[in-house]
């Protein structure tokens, strides 16, 4: 069965997007391999000397998804995206516009504006957003290629705190919904996939795990399990019991 994740016309077999932050460079390659990730996020910053080029630690063939972290306005996000393209990162861009340093919550309004500027300039924008249906619709209209609602604050590992609102986005938005930020455990990734999320983006859950490679594997399997369950259609829920064994032919006498 062919079940591809399609973002901006590009096909992916894996539904696990891995962030590359907080890792020792030496561990990134193994984490990506064991996660089976085909998309890896990166950030752009000032570089001052050759202190280890992260690109050399990401397996060949992986699609790079630079983010606009550090941007506080749509204009800043647009500039970072153009820098990413100039640095050879292609057209995919994860829009992150944040000016709240305590909870790192995205600014949906500026994010939608950035989406429009970037889509017009030929980028494939993937906006990181607070799961609000109206804002998501604005981003769709602005040219988003997927919507990336947060499950919980970035790096918190709190899990699906916004579950019911992500569910609304899945119901109402025709683009892939990629749950991003806050997923702390494979079970939470599986749960999001079961309810119809198109993919999971995780970073801290893996980077801060006791064993990075094993956790990358666990996430991979959980995401596949959740996707398979979603496609299969989960069984019904009843208030009372419904016997699984026949209610006739009892061995009494």
């Amino acid at each position, binding site marked *: 069965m062919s079940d591809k994740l399609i973002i901006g016309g590009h096909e992916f077999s894996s539904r696990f997007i891995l*962030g590359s932050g907080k890792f020792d460079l030496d561990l990134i390659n193994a984490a990506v391999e064991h996660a089976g990730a085909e998309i890896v996020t990166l950030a752009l910053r000032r570089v001052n000397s*050759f202190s280890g*080029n992260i*690109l050399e630690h990401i397996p060949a063939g992986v699609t790079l998804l630079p983010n606009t972290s550090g941007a506080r306005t749509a204009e800043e996000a647009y500039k970072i995206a153009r820098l990413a393209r100039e640095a050879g990162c292609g057209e995919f861009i994860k829009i992150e516009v944040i000016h709240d340093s305590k909870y790192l919550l995205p600014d949906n309004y500026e994010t939608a504006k950035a989406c429009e500027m970037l889509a017009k300039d030929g980028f494939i924008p993937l906006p990181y957003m607070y799961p609000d249906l109206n804002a998501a619709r604005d981003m769709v209209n602005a040219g988003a290629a997927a919507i990336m609602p947060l499950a919980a604050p970035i790096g918190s590992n709190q899990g699906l705190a916004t579950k019911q609102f992500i569910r609304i986005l899945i119901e109402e938005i025709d683009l892939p919904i990629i749950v991003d930020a806050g997923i702390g455990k494979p079970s939470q990734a599986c749960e999001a996939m079961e309810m119809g999320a198109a993919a999971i983006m995780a970073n*801290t859950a893996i980077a801060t795990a006791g064993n990075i490679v094993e956790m990358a594997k666990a996430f991979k399997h959980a995401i596949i399990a959740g996707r398979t369950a979603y496609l299969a259609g989960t069984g019904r829920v009843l208030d009372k019991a419904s016997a699984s064994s026949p209610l006739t032919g009892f061995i009494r006498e």
Partner: protein
Amino acid sequence: MVIVNGEPKEAAGMTVLELLSSMQLKPERTAVMIGDEILSKPDYGKVLTDGETVEIIGFVGGG
């Protein structure tokens, strides 16, 4: 003096390519801003002049 990533540097008279090379950075995986303008790759032969502000941007780990 040229201000490179916020720090003064003896880079006046160098081209952008020479500056990147001195920093052991690969031009194809680096972006450069002069003042507020993004410099496109064909212009990396530009000679830096005294007082210019240069930003050298590259990829780092991020989520």
